[in-house]
């Protein structure tokens, strides 16, 4: 029972709530960053050091920055972006209720299971070397697909955004 882990868990939770409830998008982004960092702590606690660092560098570092750019592109001038009142009646209560239902279902499912004791981790578990070995020996195909996916995403974004220059 590590105090650090508990604190990190609590922070992650609160930050997630803040993401969802914050009326100002920028604050949502920042809350999300906090959440990701807390998660990274948890990852490291789980002996997944490499993943934790990847989380911080790639996710919090690159993806969130992208979010910030877009937020500022869209709504920097305004405080709130959404309309005052919702068009869909009852969406909020129903959404919360459905979410609650799902949560109960998931938790029930998780807690009913009798899980075995965690196995002992070998030396080097979670390191870059172990990760690389697993990635390149066992999951090469997935790697290739992920690479393809990223390529598609880049091309797609360029196609979507790029404006044809008339005359050039």
């Amino acid at each position, binding site marked *: 029972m590590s105090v650090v882990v508990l604190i990190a868990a609590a922070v992650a939770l609160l930050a997630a709530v803040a993401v969802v409830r914050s009326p100002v998008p920028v604050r949502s982004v920042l809350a999300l960053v906090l959440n990701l960092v807390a998660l990274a702590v948890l990852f490291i606690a789980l002996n997944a050091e490499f993943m934790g660092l990847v989380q911080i560098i790639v996710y919090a570092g690159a993806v969130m920055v992208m979010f910030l750019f877009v937020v500022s592109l869209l709504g920097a001038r305004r405080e709130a972006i959404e309309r005052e009142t919702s068009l869909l009646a009852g*969406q909020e209560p129903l959404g919360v209720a459905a979410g609650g239902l799902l949560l109960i279902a998931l938790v029930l499912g998780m807690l009913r299971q009798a899980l075995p004791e965690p196995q002992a981790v070998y030396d080097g578990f979670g390191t870059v070397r172990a990760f690389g070995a697993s990635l390149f020996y066992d999951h090469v195909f997935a790697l290739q697909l992920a690479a393809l996916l990223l390529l598609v995403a880049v091309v797609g974004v360029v196609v979507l955004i790029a404006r044809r220059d008339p005359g050039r």
Partner: protein
Amino acid sequence: MENGYWLLALIPGLPLLGAAAVAAARNRWSKPALAGTACAMVGLAFIATVVALTRYLGLDGAGTLQAALWSWGFEGVGLGLLGDAVSLWFALVVTGVGLLIHIYAANYMADDPGYGRFFAELNYFIFAMSLLVLADGFLGMLVGWANVGLASYLLIGFWNQRPAAAAASRKAFWVNTVGEVGLILAMALVWNAYGSLRFADVLPQAGSAAPTTLNAIALLLLVGAVAKSAQLPLHVWLPDAMQGPTPVSALIHAATMVTAGVYLAVRAFPIFEAAPVGLPAVAAVGAASALFGAVVAVGQNDIKRVLAFSTMSQVGYMILGAGVGAYSAALFHFMTHAFFKALLFLGAGIVIHHFHGEQDIRRMGGLGRQLPFAYWTFLIGTLALIGLPPLSGFFSKDEIVVELLVTGHPVLWVLAVAAAGLTAFYMTRLFCLVFTGQAPQAAGAKGRAAREAAAAREPEATHGRVDHGHHAHHHHGVHPLQAVPVVLLAVLSAVAGVLWIPGVTAVPEHFLGRVFSQYHTAAHAAAVAPEQAKTLTMAVLLVVAALAMILGVRLYGPGRQGAGPVLPAAAVLANGFYFDDLYRAAFVRPWRALAAHVGQVIDPHVVDGAVNGMARLAGTLAAGLGRLHGGYVRRYALALLAGTAVIVLYFVML
């Protein structure tokens, strides 16, 4: 038993071929070619029948000719032909008389635009009828039975532009359908009880079924026979069937098709004998019809209708004979009746021509002087029908009536004698009104106009003419194509009796006995000694006939006033005891009302309503469900989540 006797197949096969050929070429070939083809096919079928007959005679006692035509792989179900004494006897008459009538019709129908169609349908009828009598089982017989019904429908309604003819053909078809239902139900019971539909399988073991089953089978078969043979109470179609051309009436509704019931009764006689009510029911129907037909014939004024009811009555005699076990006698009467009834109808055709389409005998007369040919031939037919010796009808009718007494049915005997007396009376009346007395005065324009109006009404007026003149009375001779068959039939009517002279020859009995003796149960003890019965019957019949004839001549002979006295209850008789009206009120009107109700109420509202309603429902549902699609993605997501949550919960709870 001679299997694979394929010659049998020619007997129905050739006319079928002829029908197809003539039908296909009816607008292309010349009339002689069409008629010639049809006649040739029937003629060849007749020759085939004769050849088969000689072959059959060469077989020993229980031998039969057989030809298996088609099998569906089941035992006991299949189409095949059987050539035994009974079937060959019938086939001989069907093809022989059929040939003569074909030849007659070649000239009779010469002016009709539907010449080719007529001969195709006539050939088709011969095919169907010979199939009916030659079939080796109920299934083949049913096929022939139904096709004969179709041929009858087509030929009765041959002049299909006339509403009366169309109505008559429909009526015949419907009444016969009632019979066919009975027949099919009987066949189902037969199959159930005996496991086969073949005569050779069923008849030898006829007695092995339960009495109630046997009764049911016998009665249902009887229904079929009653309908097809125009017996009481399903006789109503026969008088109307006279709407067809006269050769049709001669062939189908006198000589052959109406005797299909007789064939059935005789063919299935083991069943009728084994069933407790079988033979009595048959005899009752036959007696009732014989008497009824004779009574009603007295009050008829249309020459063809007299002959129609006479046919009903004579077929009643045959059925009656079958009902007391006198099968050979019944079949012998069938043959002689075919001869003289066909003769009478063909003669009637000549008469109707002469009077320019007039068919009411009260407006005829004096033909004896003008057409001696018609006079003498018709006379022979009349006397044969009445049953005067030495004509054939005497011998055949006599045999049946004698058997009634011998087998101990005095009541039936009396009824048969009464019917014979009435027969003599109405035939005498008919003959006298047509051939004796004064020719109808038709001098002057009024008369001619009336005649031509009558001619326009009746298509028969233009048939069989050799020359067209404008005389008040035509003196055209009868065309050889018509005359020769008539003469032949007259000769046959006269001399056929030689086949069965009591104590001298008994050809039918010996020939047909080959079949009957196979299954016949022990002979019934004679209730009255045969010799005495014969003498008594002969004497009584002759006396009764003579008295009736004298009365007829007195009332309607040459010295009569106009058309002779009107009979008491003439309207009742003329309307056939109102059977038609009874059926119309009991069946036709309610059915029509029901059909109208269905057509006007149920069909548009219920059926269409249901169909349209479903379409409307689909539309409403679609519109309603469409409202679920707001286009809001968040809603979709919510729905997804809710569903997923439920599913997960379900699996967790499981």
